[in-house]
């Protein structure tokens, strides 16, 4: 997964309404009226958010009779989470080594012993 693919995912996740919509979809598929209900927003406004989420691959939409149902797609979310975790591991590992290097340095130097 490249940064270019993840960019729309993170852009989509940057908005609190869209995160709330995703949260709602973890309970099951929903149509736009059901998704609009908790927000003081029009259905067209919600539809706009849904298009962004769909563009990022975070949801898919299926038509059932006259209504379109949104479905949460887990993979891009998982990849976004893994992206973050990877860098946290990188820095936490480096910082463990920095703590050790600082301790070693101070053990070997009189400056450290004098403090």
């Amino acid at each position, binding site marked *: 997964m490249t*940064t270019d693919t993840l960019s729309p995912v993170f852009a989509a996740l940057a908005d609190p309404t869209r*995160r709330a919509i995703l*949260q709602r979809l*973890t309970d099951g598929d929903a149509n736009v009226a059901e998704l609009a209900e908790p927000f003081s927003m029009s259905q067209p406004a919600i539809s706009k958010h849904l298009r962004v989420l769909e563009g990022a691959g975070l949801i898919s939409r299926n038509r059932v009779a006259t209504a379109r149902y949104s479905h949460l797609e887990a993979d891009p979310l998982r990849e976004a989470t893994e992206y973050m975790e990877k860098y946290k*591991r990188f820095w936490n590992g*480096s910082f463990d*080594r920095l703590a050790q290097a600082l301790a070693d340095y101070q053990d070997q130097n009189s400056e450290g012993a004098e403090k």
Partner: protein
Amino acid sequence: MTDTDIPVDDRDVYITRSFHAPRELVWRFWTEPDRLASWFGPDGFSVPTESVSITLVEGGEWNLTMVEDATGITSPLHTRFVTVREPEYLEMVIAGGDSNGLGELAELRLRVEFHDHGEKTRVTLHQGPFTDEQKTATATGWEMSFVALDAILEGGLQ
């Protein structure tokens, strides 16, 4: 996958850690080649001291090469300082390149704060692409903090 797995933030990464060392020493471990080489990189990687090149001025370089111990595969990291405020703040941009083998590390921005707590130093690392929108948000956040601090200080003096 549970509902708690949904990331609630953008792609920025924050890491903070308190080190048992004075701030000037921690600063040296970030800005002197042999010191930096002794710790940078995750487990299983080494940084040869001779691969480190640091020019500690704004626009200067902070370059190094990580070598994976098991395979010998090298990952050069080319980084340029955006801001240098000794001994409290460094900001740099990691310039990618196909040769670095890290792909996504390209164009990342790092902000590193060194907070003086006497015998201890708290290092706060903020990694992100920092879009213009995010930069403004961060700057506004700092301004608001300082306004609040001023108000508290004035209140205390009355």
